[in-house]
């Protein structure tokens, strides 16, 4: 995604955007739109609801959102996909991790409007009907959680890691999972589960 800083500054100044919106949000919104959308959509006022389309777990959802709503809020409170959890809402814990075009992203740091055009996968999207996906299965069998609240994010991070690196070394697993906090401290079992899931995906067990 390319940023066009002049455009951001100009549009912000022109519409008085910054007075009510955070800087981070302004950059994020405009940045996404600057990357390809038509020019008359570059700026949205905070009180304007935006019509968006989100591709989530293979379905298209048409939604009316405030520009400041995060993807996390929309997934949980508008689409009922509560597998994605709220931990900090500031990109620290990873409980809200989802895949966007197969790359793990913190849904709390992603505005719903900038999530348009991506294939978004949440924990629910890993299910095959009522059957668990391989990473989910491995987490269950290796007891890779305690309270289970960080688990959806951990599983999504592991999915992303294994898509990027199908045969991760133990060190790559630790690094790949280091963006997700687990206060219960189930890391040891998480490492085992990710390793096992990798093996299963490669068809080795």
């Amino acid at each position, binding site marked *: 995604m390319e940023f066009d800083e002049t455009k951001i500054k100009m549009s912000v100044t022109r519409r008085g955007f910054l007075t009510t919106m955070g800087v981070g949000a302004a950059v994020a919104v405009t940045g996404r739109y600057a990357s390809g959308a038509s020019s008359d959509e570059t700026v949205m006022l905070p009180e304007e609801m935006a019509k968006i389309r989100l591709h989530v777990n293979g379905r298209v959802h048409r939604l009316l959102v405030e520009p400041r709503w995060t993807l996390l809020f929309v997934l949980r409170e508008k689409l009922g996909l509560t597998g*994605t959890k709220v931990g900090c809402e500031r990109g620290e814990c990873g409980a809200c991790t989802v895949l966007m075009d197969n790359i793990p992203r913190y849904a709390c740091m992603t505005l719903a409007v900038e999530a348009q055009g991506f294939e978004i996968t949440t924990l629910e999207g890993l299910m095959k009907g009522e059957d*668990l996906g391989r990473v989910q299965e491995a987490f269950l069998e290796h007891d890779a959680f*305690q*309270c289970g609240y*960080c688990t*959806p994010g951990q599983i999504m991070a592991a999915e992303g890691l294994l898509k990027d690196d199908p045969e991760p070394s133990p060190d790559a697993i630790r690094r790949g999972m280091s963006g997700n906090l*687990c206060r219960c*401290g189930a890391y*040891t079992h998480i490492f085992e589960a990710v390793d096992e899931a990798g093996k299963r995906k490669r068809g080795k067990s």
Partner: protein
Amino acid sequence: MKNEEKGIYFAEGLAVPETPEPGKDPKPWKETNVVGKSRPRVDGYERVSGSAMYPSDYSLPHMLFGAVLRCPYPNAKIKRVDTRKAEQMPGVRAIISAATPEARVLWPYTPHMKVELFDSHCRFEGEAVAAVAAETPYQASDAVRAIDVTYEVLPFVTDERKAMLSDAPKVHPAGNRVGPTEHYSRGDVAKGFEEADVVLEESYRTECEIHTPMELHGCLAYWDGDLLNIHESTQGVYAVQSKVAEVLDLPLSKVRVMGRYMGGGFGSKLQPGKYTVIAAILAKITGCPVKLFLTREETYLCTGNRPASNMKLKAGVTKDGRLTALDFSVVGSGGAYPAGGTLLVDWLVKDLYLCPNVRTAATDVYTNAGPARPFRAPGHPQGAWALEQMMDALAKAIDMDPVALRLKNIPSYSQARKGNPPYTTTGLAACLKEGAKAFGWEKRRKEIAAEKPNGSLRRGVGMAACLWVAGGGRPPSTIILKLFSDGSVNLNMGASDIGTGTKTVMAMVVAEELNVHTDVIQIEHADTGTTQFATPSGGSKTVPTEAPAVRRAAIHVKQQLLEMAAEQLKADVSDLRFKGNAIVHGNDDAKKVTIKDLKGLKKRGVVVGVGYRGPNPEGKVVNPFGVQFCEVEMDIRTGEIRIVDFLGANESGRVMDRLTFDNQVFGGITMGIGLGMTEVRVLDEGGSGKMLNKNWHDYKLPTALDVSPRMTSFPIELPDPEANITGAKGLGEPVTIPTAAAIANAVYHACGVRMTETPINPTRLGVMLSDRPKEA
């Protein structure tokens, strides 16, 4: 589907534990079919599929979102709250403050110290000032920021070390002492020090630690007429019910609290918060369900902590390793209200090792900071930080192995309790001996001693031991077990599963007794409306409290089935026993009936078994014990430390589920790494008095990269038939007590620097390394 494949029962002919006669205690299990094995969680599917509904996941029609305005100063009086502008904002449906009649209720910080829900005097940063309900959380937080409050900002003290100075601002009018200093004494400490060959004295400090469970604190509250319903992220639904009912002056029956899943608590969710009551009031005023979950920043300020502990320890030992005297003192603060600022910090000094002469003093003071709440093994990790580093230093001073020194001072009874009651079992010696062997303690120490320095890298090993003051469980607990006519089972208990695997362990107990698969056991729990009374899940007491009651309920079911079979087979109950899926006659194989074919069961449709938790053994103490060993590698130029591996040897009676047992051990060690190496609450004592690191970036939890990739759980399983009828003791707390001290001892072993204050991080260790006298 699954049941057709596997059936409800385990293999036919499998031995089922003998059923005692009514009124008699069952014998301990001998060989077990289910208990003690590695069983993935019975609710694992829900947790990994996203279908488990945590309290923060619930959504109801017309639901509003709550948010709380909090005092930004550590000490301030509220002069005026102007909500006019906020009331006009889009989506805002209610604003409550001290001026709202419905919100004029008293919040009991303790039974004797009650304040207004929105008190005009805010004694800590983060105290509640007003609250909003709005249609979206964004609108709620906009409105909170638009409330205009005039504060009279007052002088403050946030550092407990300064709270007793004569010029310190007073947190409460009567001064900054919570009470008189608490003293304990046995024997003659002065005489003990005279008998010692070596006497050492040291000061220690552990920093304040915040629980920060992954799921935020909060609830969804809604009213059905006069019935208040609350989905709360809690460790104990009945604890929430009683406090909310008290504050809102409601009958207990009119407060229904549910918390089937919850995302971690570690002690901070043993009680409701003001937020629970605020949500209930907002829901009442608006007539809508209100979901009120705090922000992460708020959870750092007002949902409890493990207080900082400032400790002094003087210890005497003879050349042959006998402890002669321990003299200990601690100063701590539970914050702005009484909250056990020094609770149990001295317990290990008083009780872990044999020592005839012990004196302790604990001074709890008020500070302008958020009140503490119990945090996983209150007081114990702090006490272990001092005592276990002191033991290490004493061992070095008398040239004895640290494990050997501890082995010379093993008590078989509790010295700190009146009458010196014996422990039902003490696995301390076994944990030390067998743990050391499994870890390769002596071998590694020899290797390290013989090693030449590898550049600036140094290796070291360390260990520390503990007991946990509770962990035996206790009454009350009631369990109701329903056996349906096909043999499948419904288990009803009030206890919460806070992530320790409570539900799984209970299902395993039922499976063991009734010979059914855990898959066919449905568990209803943690709901004051439909499940039985239980104390909150905490204190490492849930398994030893609930499991015996579950076993009794299962036995009660079996006794009734036997009576039905006796009637049907025209036999005597005492001749009948369970075998596989049937009840058979002891002497006559032809006389047998499967459970499904019991006429009595078919007719009644269900058999209900009730189990109560019996009393603990009189005059005895049930405590779990544990020892941890670790190896670190450190760089003496940079102070960076890598934890090479960790071993936890835990004696917690019978292992119920090996998989969740190991998980607890690793989790406890991880949390101990946090206390020892990464976590510290920073308050701006010299400036604003505010917390400077109320987020996970600046307050660092151990991540996947901070824990050792190699961790070993080494259970020491001693039969403990006296503890309770399952023989299980608590585990969740002992697993985190010795960790920080073990790391400190390993660091000392590696580089000769004694880190007496947490956290041991490169910044602080680097300073210590450069300050020490240079090696020749």
